[in-house]
C-alpha cells in the first residue's frame, strides 16, 4: 500500500500528487531527488526502492516524469512497482502519451483517476475500460444517477456488460522475441524464446473463449497420439481473465476476454536456438591512422521466410571519423552518438549472406582503448513475419456467447523478432 502518489518532473518538482493517508508530511517529496543523487554518487547507481528516515521511496521513470509512491510501512514492493506501471498505462490510454505536458493539460482528469484507482493507499482498479464508465471527466455519456459499474464488484472485473459489435471478430498475434548472447566463435552462451499471445477482441456480450495450442503437456496428458510438432513451454503467465485453476488442472485455456486489445498470455522456452542471423566482424587497425572492418551477415532460417528492417549495430572506436562504407545490400550509416555504425537491411531472405566493408579514420590509437572498445557486442534488430522459432501453433479458438449466439471469425498472425538482448560478443 502507499501513503501518497506523486508525479514529478525530472527536476523533482511536483506536477500533481495525491495524499491517501495523511501520515507523511508532503514536504518529504522534496528529498526524493537529492536522496537519489546522493545514493548515485556514493554507490555509483540508484535502485527503484530507496529509504530515508523511515520513509520509503518507490518509483519508476517514464519519459520526462517520475511516478513516485511514498510509504511508511513495509509495503509490497512488487505491488507498488506494478501499480505505478499500470497507472502509467492508464494515463497513456487516456492521453496517448505520458509526459509532464499531458498531465498539466488534464489536471482534473488525473485527480479523478487518482481517486478511483486507489483508496487509502490500496490499489482498486487499473482497468481503463472499466474506469471510463464512471470517470466523469471527458465522458459525456455518464448519466446523472448511474450506478457503479457491475464490473467494479463483479467477479469479472475486466469486462463490462452490454458490449455490442455489429461484426464480431478476434485477432490473435503470436509474437516471439528471441534473446541471444553468442560468443565470437559461434558458441551460444544464452538463448531464450519469450512468446506473447496478444488478442484484439471485438466481441459482443459476455463471450466464453477457449484457445487450443500445440501444447506438448496437454497432448501427453490427454494420452493423444502426437501428430505433428508440439512445443513444451517452461512457464506460462496469463492475463487475469484466464481461469488459472482450470489450466493447472487440465491445461485448458478458457477465459472471458476484456474488450479490445490485451496480452492473453506469455510463455518462455529455453530451447537451443541457433542464431537466426549470424554476424562475423573482423577489424584491423592500420598503424594508428585508420581502422578497417569486414562484416558478414548470414540469415540462418528457412528460405521462404524474410527478415524485415534488419539493423546490425557494430561498435566502433569513439574517436573514429571519416567513415566510408561499401555493401552489397542495404545501407550503412555512422551513428557517432552510439559510437557505432548501423547496417540497415530492409529485406533479408533466409539462407542469404550479405557483406559490408567499412573504413574509418583514427586520430590516435592506444592499445588499452582498443581493448576496451572491443568489449562491446554487435547487436541486432529484426522481425520475421509468418514464423515462430518455437514452432508454436494456434490450433483453434472457440468462441461461445450463450445468449447472443453469434458467429465470430478468429484471425491469427505470427512474428519472430529480436528480444531485449540479441548480441554477439566480440
Amino acid at each position: 500500500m502507499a501513503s501518497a502518489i506523486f508525479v514529478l518532473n525530472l527536476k523533482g518538482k511536483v506536477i500533481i500528487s495525491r495524499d491517501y493517508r495523511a501520515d507523511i508530511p508532503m514536504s518529504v517529496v522534496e528529498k526524493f531527488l537529492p536522496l537519489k543523487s546522493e545514493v548515485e554518487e556514493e554507490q555509483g547507481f540508484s535502485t527503484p526502492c530507496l529509504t530515508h528516515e523511515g520513509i520509503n521511496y518507490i518509483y519508476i521513470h517514464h519519459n520526462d516524469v517520475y511516478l513516485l509512491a511514498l510509504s511508511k510501512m513495509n509495503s509490497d514492493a512488487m505491488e507498488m512497482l506494478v501499480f505505478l506501471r499500470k497507472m502509467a498505462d492508464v494515463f497513456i490510454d487516456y492521453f496517448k502519451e505520458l509526459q509532464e505536458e499531458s498531465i498539466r493539460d488534464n489536471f482534473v482528469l488525473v485527480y479523478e483517476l487518482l481517486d478511483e484507482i486507489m483508496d487509502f493507499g490500496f490499489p482498486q482498479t487499473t482497468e481503463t475500460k472499466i474506469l471510463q464508465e464512471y470517470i466523469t471527466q471527458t465522458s459525456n455519456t455518464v448519466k446523472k444517477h448511474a450506478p457503479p459499474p457491475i464490473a467494479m464488484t463483479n467477479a469479472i472485473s475486466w469486462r463490462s456488460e452490454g458490449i455490442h459489435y455489429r461484426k464480431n471478430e478476434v485477432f490473435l498475434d503470436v509474437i516471439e522475441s528471441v534473446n541471444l548472447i553468442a560468443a565470437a566463435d559461434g558458441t551460444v552462451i544464452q538463448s531464450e524464446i519469450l512468446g506473447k499471445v496478444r488478442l484484439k477482441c471485438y466481441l459482443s456480450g459476455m463471450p466464453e473463449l477457449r484457445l487450443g495450442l500445440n501444447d506438448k503437456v496437454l497432448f501427453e496428458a490427454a494420452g493423444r497420439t502426437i501428430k505433428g510438432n508440439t512445443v513444451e513451454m517452461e512457464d506460462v503467465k496469463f492475463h487475469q481473465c484466464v481461469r488459472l485453476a482450470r489450466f493447472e488442472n487440465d491445461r485448458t485455456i478458457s477465459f472471458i476476454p476484456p474488450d479490445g486489445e490485451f496480452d492473453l498470455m506469455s510463455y518462455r522456452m529455453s530451447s537451443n536456438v541457433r542464431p537466426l542471423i549470424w554476424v562475423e566482424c573482423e577489424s584491423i587497425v592500420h598503424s594508428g591512422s585508420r581502422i578497417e572492418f569486414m562484416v558478414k551477415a548470414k540469415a540462418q532460417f528457412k528460405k521462404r521466410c524474410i527478415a524485415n528492417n534488419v539493423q546490425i549495430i557494430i561498435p566502433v572506436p569513439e574517436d573514429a571519423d571519416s567513415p566510408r562504407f561499401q555493401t552489397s545490400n542495404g545501407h550503412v550509416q555512422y551513428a557517432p552518438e552510439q559510437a557505432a555504425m548501423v547496417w540497415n537491411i530492409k529485406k533479408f531472405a533466409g539462407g542469404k549472406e550479405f557483406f559490408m566493408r567499412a573504413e574509418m579514420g583514427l586520430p590516435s590509437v592506444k592499445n588499452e582503448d582498443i581493448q576496451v572498445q572491443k568489449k562491446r557486442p554487435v547487436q541486432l534488430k529484426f522481425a520475421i513475419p509468418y514464423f515462430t522459432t518455437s514452432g508454436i501453433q494456434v490450433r483453434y479458438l472457440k468462441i461461445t456467447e450463450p445468449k447472443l449466439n453469434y458467429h465470430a471469425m478468429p484471425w491469427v498472425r505470427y512474428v519472430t523478432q529480436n528480444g531485449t538482448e540479441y548480441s554477439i560478443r566480440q
Partner: protein
Amino acid sequence: MSSSSSHFSSTAADLLAVFSSDNKDKSANKRISALKKAIAGISYGYDMSSLFPSVISSMESNNLELKKLCYLYLKIYASVKPTEAKRAVKLILNDIYSSNPMIRSLALRTLTSVNIKNFWVAAMDPIVRLLDDTDPYVRKTAAIGIAKLYSYDKKMVESSGLIDHLKEMLSDESSVVVANSLAALMNIVNSSTGFKLTFSREISNKLVKSLTDCSEWLQVAILDALIFYVPQKPGEAESFAERISPWLQHGNAAVCMGAVKVILYLTNYMKDDNRVKEYFMKTQPPLVTLLARKSSATQYVILRNIQIILEQCPEMFANDIHFFYCNFDDPIYVKLEKLDILTKIADIHNLDQILPEFVEYASEIDVELVRKSVKCIGYLAIKIEERKNDCIDSLIELMNTKVTYVIQEAVIVIRDILRKYPGSYKSLVPILYENLDSLDEPDAKSAVIWILGQYAEEIEDSITLLNDYLKGFFDEPLEIQLTLLTAVIKVFLKKPTAAADMVTNVLQWCTDEVNDPDLRDRGIIYSRMLSANPELAKKVILANMPPVNVGTGMYDPDTTEQLMLNISTLSSIYHKPPNRFVKGAQVAYCEPSPVLRLRTRDSNPSNTDSRESNHKKYNHFHQKSQTRRVMEQYDRNSWNPSPFSDESNSNTFSGKFDSADQENLGMPMTPETHLMD
C-alpha cells in the same frame, strides 16, 4: 477541455462571479467549468481558497460530475481551511442517504478521507449503516473507511466495535468486499501493537476460494493475508499450497510473487523434505519468467528475492545458471545482483561456465561491474577450493591488463586468498610487488600493507616499502594506520635488526603523537608486549589466524526466516526485517504448530566447522560487518555505529591474549576488508 492558457488567465475573482450568478440547475455546466479551472489553478500553485463557500453551496447539486469536483476541491483545501470545511459535513451526510450508490460511496470516501475530527466522527454511524448497504461497491468503501478512521483515532475505533464489524465482513457474499475488508483489517493489525492475527482454516478456505472471483489487486491482498493461516494437521499445508499454485502463472507480477510467498511459507509446515524441495523448485520457473520481463525494476525485486530464497534452497538454480548472465544493456544495479547470485550458485560442476562469464564482465566498460567481477573471482577461489588455481590464473590474467581499478580490486581479494591458503601462492607476492604503484585506494593499500607484514620474509624490500607508506602515516585514515602498526610489528618480529628503527618510530608516534584512543591503546599494548616478553609476543602476534570460511550463508537462520516471510515486500529489497526500517513494525515468525518443521542446523555442512569457538566468533563478526554494509546502503541515518564499535573495543581491550584476540591484533577487522560487501 479548456486549454491551459485559459486556466492561467482565470483568477479566483473571475470564477467567483460564475458561482454567484444564479442557483438554478442549468448553471451546473458553468460551475463545472469554473471548478475545473479552479482545480487546475490550484495545481499550478495559485490560491483558490476564496471559492470555498461557493463550492460548498454547489455540493447540493445532483449532478455527479459537479459533485465530484466539489468533493475533490474539498479534499484539497479542507486542511487549509478547516472552519469552512466543517460546514460541508452536513451536506456530505445528506449524500450518504442518496439513492445513487455511486454518490453514497463517494460521500463516505470523502468523509473518511479528511483528517478533521468533525469529519471522521461524523463518519462513525454512516459506516456501520453502509457496511450493510445493498451495493457491494459501497460496502467495500465502508470497510476501507474503518481502516482510515483507525489511522486517525485508534482508541475511538477500538471502543466503537467497528473492528468486530469489519471481521464480520470477511463473510460477505461479495469477494470484493471480503478482500477489501481483509486489506483494511491487515492494515489495522500492522499499525497496532495490541492485535495478533490468525486465520482459521475455515476463513482461509474461503479466502482461497475468493481468489478466483477477485481482481488482481485484491488477489494480492488475499495472498498477503494467507501467511496468517497456521496449518495444524499433516497434509494441510500441502493441500493449501496445491490450491495456490495456479496463481504462480498470473500475469501480474505482484500476484505471482504473492503466490510464491505463501507457498514457501507453507513449506515450513510440511514434513517430507522431498515435498518441500518440490515446492521450492515449483516456484523457480515463474521467478525466471519474471526475470525476463523488460522492466528493470521488476528484475531488481526478483533478484533481491531470489537471493533470500537461495539461502534456504541453494540448489534451486543449480542447472539454470544462464538465467543470471548479464545482458549488455541491463542497468548496473541488475548486473550486480546477478553477479551475487551467480557467485552463490557457483560450484565445482558449473564453474567452467561461470568463471568465463566473470572474466568477460571484468573486461566491461562499467567500472562498478569490473570491480564486482574481480571480487567474485577472488571469492570463488576461496569458495571452491578444488578449482582455486583456475580462479587465481584468471586474476593474474586480469591484472596483466594493467587497468588500475582491476589491480586494486585484485589486490584486495589476493589478500583474502593468501589468508585462506596460508603458505600457498607465495608466487602471487612478486606480482603484487610489480603493481604497487597502482594502489591508491584505502582498501587496496590496507590489503597490500597487510601482505607486506604477513609475508615480510618473502619480500626483500618489505621494510623499504613500509617506510614509504609510513611517510604519510599521519595523513592516513585510522583503518590504514592500524594496519600499518600491525604490519610494522610483524616485520620487526621477523626481521628484528633491520626493522628496529622503524618500529621505534611507529610506536612512539602511536603512543605519544596521535589523538585516536584506539590507535594509541593498541600501540601501548604492542609496546608493552615487546618490552615484557618478545618471545611470547611473537607467538601471539604471528600465530596462525582462524581460517577464512565462505561456506556459511549471508544471514543467520532467524534473519533468513524473517526475510522469507516478507518476500516481495520492501523488507526483501533492503534485506532487513521490517522492524529495522519501519517504526513499530511487528516481527513475523512461523507460529508453533504440531506440524511445524524443526529448523535443522545439522544439514548445513559448515556447522561442522562452527563447533570451533574461533570460527564461531569470526562468523559472528562477519555477520555484523555484512549487516552494517547492507544497512548503510539503504538507510544510512538509522545506522547506530555504537554497538559495533563497542564490540570492537571490547575485543581490542580484552585482558587476555587468546586466539580470538589474535584475530584483532593480527589484522584489524573493519567492514571494508570483507569479501562480498
